[in-house]
């Protein structure tokens, strides 16, 4: 077990404390704890921990079917320290609505969180999500976006990015992965004229926590789309999840933005934009693009154009040093700007 020096109250004769003990001494609330069955480096597991930590104990979770639900529970075990309900794949929005209505009727003050993957949000659960937003239930809906149906073995969803290979959009002689575009769920959701809809990434935990806290304070439906790498489905080393997630942001492919009542109110500037190939090359799901054929070259140009479009659309290009940009957002600072 790795040890570090504990400046506070030493628990060992040599003045060190185990990382586990240190973690347990932290006053931070943990709603989702270790011991679950996620793959090493699972972005979703990291994101769920960050979200529940930031949301605090006065919550109840409605979880759609998917990796998060499956790896966090198998009777009689559970990784959840908050009340948690799993029903089906496509009804997280609706069971969350019911939970919220129940708390309202009973005078219980607890915020309802709905958790779902991209399949459970962009595709099969979209109707119940839309209904929940339209009725403005006081629910924070978090979509853990790993860009495919991972729990069933990496099938394409409408969130899968263009050209990514999945088991139902494989690369082959005739095809370069998924033919269609990634659905712009954030804008679609925001078009419900909802109070708050934002994107976040596991690469930027402070930003993610800040957005959760922001959403928790809002009375009404809020939506958070958290870009969450899946080492198994994206085919990268589990140790590189945060790095890959960061590249998704710094290339402009995943803009980190906030929309209030449909209007853009915040974005994370990119201090040093990176070419999309840096992001794509890091993942096996795009490996078919790195062959010397006109079609592959064209596809790479196309993806770069998509990133450029995001940069323009959301004004992502940073203008020098900014504590809130992609280089500053997660720097640990004493004093100065703090957002989390």
């Amino acid at each position, binding site marked *: 077990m790795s040890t570090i020096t504990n400046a506070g109250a030493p628990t060992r004769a040599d003045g060190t404390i185990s990382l586990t003990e240190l973690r347990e001494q932290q006053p931070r609330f943990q709603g989702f704890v270790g011991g679950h069955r996620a793959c090493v480096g699972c972005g979703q597991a990291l994101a769920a921990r960050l979200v529940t930590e930031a949301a605090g104990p006065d919550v*109840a979770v409605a979880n759609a079917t998917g990796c998060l639900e499956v790896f966090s529970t198998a*009777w009689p075990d559970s990784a*959840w320290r908050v009340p948690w309900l*799993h*029903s089906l794949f*496509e009804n997280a929005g609706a069971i969350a*609505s*019911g939970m919220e209505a129940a708390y309202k009727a009973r005078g219980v003050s607890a915020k309802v969180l709905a958790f779902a993957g991209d399949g459970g949000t962009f595709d099969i659960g979209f*109707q119940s999500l839309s209904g929940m937003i339209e009725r403005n239930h006081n629910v924070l809906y978090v979509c853990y976006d790993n860009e495919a149906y991972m729990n069933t073995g990496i099938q394409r969803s409408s969130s899968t990015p263009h050209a990514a290979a999945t088991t139902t959009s494989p690369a082959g002689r005739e095809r370069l992965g998924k033919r269609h575009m990634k659905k712009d769920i954030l804008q679609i959701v925001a078009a419900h004229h909802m109070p708050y809809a934002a994107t976040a990434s596991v690469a930027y935990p402070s930003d993610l926590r800040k957005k959760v806290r922001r959403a928790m304070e809002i009375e009404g439906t809020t939506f958070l789309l958290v870009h969450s790498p899946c080492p198994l489905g994206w085919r990268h080393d589990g140790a590189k999840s945060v790095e890959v997630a960061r590249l998704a942001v710094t290339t402009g492919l995943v803009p980190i933005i906030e929309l209030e009542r449909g209007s853009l109110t915040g974005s994370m500037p990119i201090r040093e934009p990176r070419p999309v190939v840096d992001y794509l090359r890091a993942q096996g799901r795009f490996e078919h693009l790195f062959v010397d054929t006109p079609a592959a070259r064209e596809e790479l140009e196309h993806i770069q154009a998509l990133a450029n479009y995001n940069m323009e659309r959301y004004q992502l290009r940073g203008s020098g040093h900014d504590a809130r940009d992609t280089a500053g957002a997660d720097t640990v600072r004493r004093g100065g700007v703090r957002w989390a």
Partner: protein
Amino acid sequence: MRQALEGSQAIARAVALCRPDVVSAYPITPQTHIVENIAKLVADGELKCEYVSVESEHSAASVALGAAAAGARAYTASASQGILLMCEVLYDIAGLRIPMVLTCANRAVSAPLSIWNDHQDSMAVRDAGWIQIHCADNQEAVDTTIQAFRIAQDTDLPVMVCVDGFTLTHTLEPIELPTQQQVDDFLPPFVFARALDPRKPLSIGTMATPDWFTEARHSHHGAVLAAAEVIAAADADWQRITGRCGGGLLAVDGPDDARIGVVCMGSITGTLQDARAASPELPAARIIRLRSYRPFPAQALREACAGLDQVVVLERALAPGGVGIVGAEVRAALYGTPDAPRVQSVAAGLGGRDMPLTTYARLIALAQAEATTDFAILDVELDKLPEADRYAAAAMAGGQA
């Protein structure tokens, strides 16, 4: 106080008397009047609850699921396509052992599209693990709705109250609505021991490996069987308070020395009783109405069939390519009992086909026929069909018409 109320309106009032916390609503004929009436009670301030107008029946059931899991008394209603769209959620509600109440305004299932009454919808979800209670008239619908809320919370099971679409939902009847005091005396406030509570975090709906699935199923099956006593007890208690009872698990009506029995469910019971009274020239059959269809009251049925030579089951749903749905269960319950009667089974009144008083005479004729009809549709009019569609294997035995 007795008042003339449309069935749906009476059911809505009964629901309101039960003080639900959350009602989820989605329209479908012939159920719509129920949720409309509840909406009006809420709008007029006569009922305080969260009324959630959802975007589909899948969500109507899901909202009720989430609400009950979070400790609310929850209610919804549907029919036909709505019940089928809910199917996945209905299984889930039952498997999670969530207590709630749903009214099914029984209606046929497409295709062909039919808005009229039969029992295909609730039959389609027969094995979802819900308690299913069928009502004979609107007074019973009111009483059973109130009982259902108590049965649900006493068993941790969801209860489906089945009422025949149009025949009951859209019919004005003189109804005795109980007082709020009577209902409060009968129905304690809703308490759900496993409710989602931040002070006592529980995980509900976890995955079950093969090590646990069977045990979960066993306890669910056992709980539905054990609900029989709770259903009977609730009805008996209700009778103590109001003087009215629905008949417990099944209602038996007719002479003790009857040789012919007719087994049925729902509102056709009254028609058969009237026809029997109006036809003294025919043998008087014992009419056995299954009130509780799930749990299936096998023992009560065996007792009700004592002394009978002939049993005819009147089906209101179809299992194409199979046999009579209720008939098969009746046969299974009676199999091996001493002097078991002959059991025949026929469907009638599918998709709202009128079932006139003469239906009774046809059932008696069937009981008296030499040839045995395992299963057929009693009231099909074969002359409407091309020759090729007049299937002999699907017809009544011995050329009976």
